Every structure is written in structure tokens, then in C-alpha cells.
């Protein structure tokens, strides 16, 4: 149900992002989605990739600190108000959102990557109650 996400600690230094993309490219790893969370001194690059364990391996070999975390990838119709429904479901269970990112480039659906305080509970509530709004968890 949950998807493996690779997170990499990246210092705010010129050329570091390029080194990350080069590692992944050399390892023939495709990036499905990514977000760079930044602070003044460092960034945290989170990615959904074609092969998370391999991505971790190649990044570590290049000297990066990388870890795998499990996140929810949620698919829902590209209609106004659907995100609100999803948040409502989380709210009912008192789940807090650690972070999320997503984009919608298709006319009919949008995809969101979410980490909540309890991903298993979040996945469960979506599978139970999400269907009526056409919200579902997909596995990448």
C-alpha cells in the first residue's frame, strides 16, 4: 500500500543537486516525483523513484546520506474540493501531515505524495472511505 521514498541530505552548495541527478542517471534510475525542502543551510531532497533501494545504494556510494521512508501516494480526481475531502478524512482520525507534495498535469486526475503521523491508518481510511470521492492510494 505504501510507497518507498528516498530522502537525501544535501548541503546548500553549488553543484550538489547536479551530483544527485548524475548518480541517479548513472544508475539508470527514473524520478517520478521530487521535492526539495530547504533550510538556510541544507536541503532535504525527497524523491519517488523507479528503484528506491538502488537509488539509496548509488547515492551512498557517492557519499550522500540517504534513507528510505514510506509515504502514501494518493490519486484523486482533478476536481475542486477533492483535496478538502482527503484532509477531512485525515482530520477525523487526528492524523497530522508531516509533509506533502504533488502536481496535476492531467485533466482528470491529480497525484499527491503525503507523509502523515500514521501512514497505515491514513491508507486504511482512504481505502474505506475514499472511494465515494474517487480517492485512492496507489503503489508506485
Amino acid at each position: 500500500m505504501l510507497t518507498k521514498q528516498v530522502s537525501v541530505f544535501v548541503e546548500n552548495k553549488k553543484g550538489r543537486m547536479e551530483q544527485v541527478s548524475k548518480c541517479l542517471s548513472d544508475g539508470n534510475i527514473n524520478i517520478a516525483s521530487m521535492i526539495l525542502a530547504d533550510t538556510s543551510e541544507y536541503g532535504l531532497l525527497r524523491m519517488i523513484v523507479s528503484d528506491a533501494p538502488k537509488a539509496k545504494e548509488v547515492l551512498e556510494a557517492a557519499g550522500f546520506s540517504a534513507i528510505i521512508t514510506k509515504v502514501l501516494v494518493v490519486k484523486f480526481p482533478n476536481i475542486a474540493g477533492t483535496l478538502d475531502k482527503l484532509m477531512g478524512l485525515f482530520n477525523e482520525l487526528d492524523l497530522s501531515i508531516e509533509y506533502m507534495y504533488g502536481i496535476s498535469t492531467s485533466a482528470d486526475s491529480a497525484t499527491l505524495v503525503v507523509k502523515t503521523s500514521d501512514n497505515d491508518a491514513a491508507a486504511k481510511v482512504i481505502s474505506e472511505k475514499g472511494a465515494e470521492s474517487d480517492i485512492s492510494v496507489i503503489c508506485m
Partner: protein
Amino acid sequence: MIWNEAKECMSRDEMAALQSARLVKTVNRVYHNVEFYRKKMQKVGIEPGDIKGIEDITKLPYTTKADLRDNYPFGLFAVPKSEIVRVHASSGTTGKATVVGYTRRDIDIWAECVARILYMAGLRREDIIQVAYGYGLFTGGLGLHYGAENLGATVVPMSTGNTKKLITMMLDFEATGIACTPSYLLHIAETIKEMGVRDQIKLKTAVCGAEPWTEQMRLQIEEELGINAHDIYGLSEIMGPGVAADCEFHKGLHVHEDHFFPEIIAPDTLEPVAPGEVGELVFTTLTKEGLPMIRYRTKDLTSITYDKCECGRTTARISRFKGRSDDMLVIRGVNVFPSQVEAALLEMGETTPHYMMIVDRVNNLDTLEIKVEVEEKFFTDEIKQLEQLSKKIGHVIHQALGIQAKITLVEPKSIERSMGKAVHVIDNRNLV
């Protein structure tokens, strides 16, 4: 302008005679009362009778900070504990502090030495002096406090911390003197400027020490505040602030030679060097009762002159410090050892001990940044947890060093590894 003319202007022959008599007494005392010194002297085949005068001092073995630590806490005290009226302590490399103890007479002599310096700096009983060194285990606050009281001045025990309050009181009380670290005084000067009260202060003299500073900085302080600034030197092992200070001619720091005998040695060969040559400063206390020190290696690099000063004093003068012969850092007046950082990080267990300390001076205040590598096993994918990690490291470092440091998390292996002795410090202050 001389507080104790009889002592500060003695002829060199009279001084040597006084030092000889006092050294003989001191050596006798430590031999019979401190096992450490007795054993050390026996090891090199020296008995108290072999020390007949000050010229025999070179026969005695050296004492180091490690000896103090090894005899923690009171092992080197030469009097029964009932005679000790106060202790001070400074932080050490292994978490163990260096403890120093004073008898009532030691405290009196300390106050005498500091009074000489305050008087030399132009302060009198009519003056109001703000003591803005830290009060507590550190010798700065209480050392200056007792000296200023002995002078008869009005003492305002500010301690450190609230700069605005210090300036408000400086204005309200019409304070004329201040004692603090030079970097703190520059910070005070800036705050005075910001508050727009530069024309209202009555300050005329500052006595600054407890951290290395340059002649340039001294002139800057004088210019910015329109005052005279003096350099006061001391170390807790010998007494605390007040071992030496500069007079109005600022041509070296006069050592209170009747109480502290200075020698300059080559740090490698441990042989004495000629006057004017740079070497490590070594002190022997001549009157200390609680914790006498025999040939204590200060690790401070300086040179010495015995020429009579224009001020009339005949006491030896040591030059402004050229640095340290070991890796100790003085940051905001606090002694900091890189190994303390290492020990703290290791103890915490959440980071590797790969770190780099970057010392700088921003707006005239010392800053300390510590870069710490984030290893995969401690790394999470949430910013708030990373922030908690740096906060926790900051807390542990503050506990260990007694000063705040900015913690920067960096990538693993990004801190340069060196062969041999690791480089853990980048000091950008350019003090020498």
C-alpha cells in the same frame, strides 16, 4: 600613579633579594606539604636546601595543567582545607575542571595586585567601576570585584548578560570605570552608539582581559568610547586576573614580580630564552599559600624585558601575547578545547565525532560555529527532526563548553580528513 611604590619601583637587586627569600620559603612549604612536589623534587634529586636563591629556580621541575587535573580537586593544595576560604574552577578537556584554592591571605594579595592595576589604569577611590566579567567559578568577576573594593572605589557587580541595563546604569550612576573582556566592551560601545548616548557617558577607563586581543583593538576601544583602555592578564592557576597589566605607556604588561616570578622558556627545549626573545611564559608563585605553583607552564607565548619603564616602575614587562603553545582557544573569555567538543559529541552518540569549529569575530563578539556531519543512521527525512538534532547538539555543546555555538549540519565526509593530527579549528579572528 603608583599604588605600592615600595614594591613596584624596587631596584632590581632589592627585587632579586625579595624573590630569593620568598622562593626559599615557598619551596620549603611545598616540599613539606604537597606530596606531588616532594616526589617530583626527589625524582630529580633536589632538596629544599639546594634552592638558596632565585637563581636556583631553574633546578626545579616544571608543573603543567595536566598535573593540576591529575590531582583534582585539592591534591596540590599546600594548606589544610580549613585554611581555604574560596575555590574557583575552570573547565578542562576531559570534563574535569581545574580547581584552585585561596587562603584569606591569598585573597588579600589578589585584591592588592588588582588594586595596583586599577590604580595604574588611573582609577581611584572616587571612581564608580562596573565589573562586567562573569561572577562565579570563573575568576574574572570576583577577582576584579575584590580588587576594586580594595582600591576603595564604588563597585557595581554587573556580571555579564544584560548590555542595555549595563549602559543604563553606566549613565545613571555616572560610572567612570569598567572591567570586562575587550570583545564585550566593543559590543557595549556599539550598543552605546545605537542608543545614541555616546556623549552622555562619563566612562574614562576600561581594564580588559581574559581573552587575547590586539593593540589595534585596544586603540579602537579607546577611540570609540573616548577612554583609556588597559590590558590585564592573569590565569586562575597562578591567581586569576591581576598577575600583570599595562601602564599608561602601554609598552608591555608589568608583572607583580614580588608575588609571581616570570621566566620565558623555549617550548621545545624547555631552556630559558634571552630577554626580548619569544617563548613560553612560566610562573612561580612566591607568596601563594593555598595553591603554590612551581614553574607553571602557562602555554602563553610572549617575550620579557627588565628595562625600567617610563612610568617609573622597575618590574619586568611581558609583551602582548603572541599565541598559545597548545590548541586551547579562548572564546568570549572562556577556555575551550576542541577535545571537549569531541567528547560531548561522542557522549551524545547521535553524530560522528567529525566536526569543525569555526571561530570568528562578528561585530566585535567572538562567534563559534560547529559543523557536524550528519550520518545516515541519525538522519531522518523530516526537517523538524533535523532541527531538533542541531538544537540538541547545541545544548550538549553549551553544557560542555559553557558558551553558545551555532550548529551547522553538513554532509557526511564533507569535513576534510587530515593525516596525523586532525584539524578541528579554523580561527578567523586574526588576533596576532
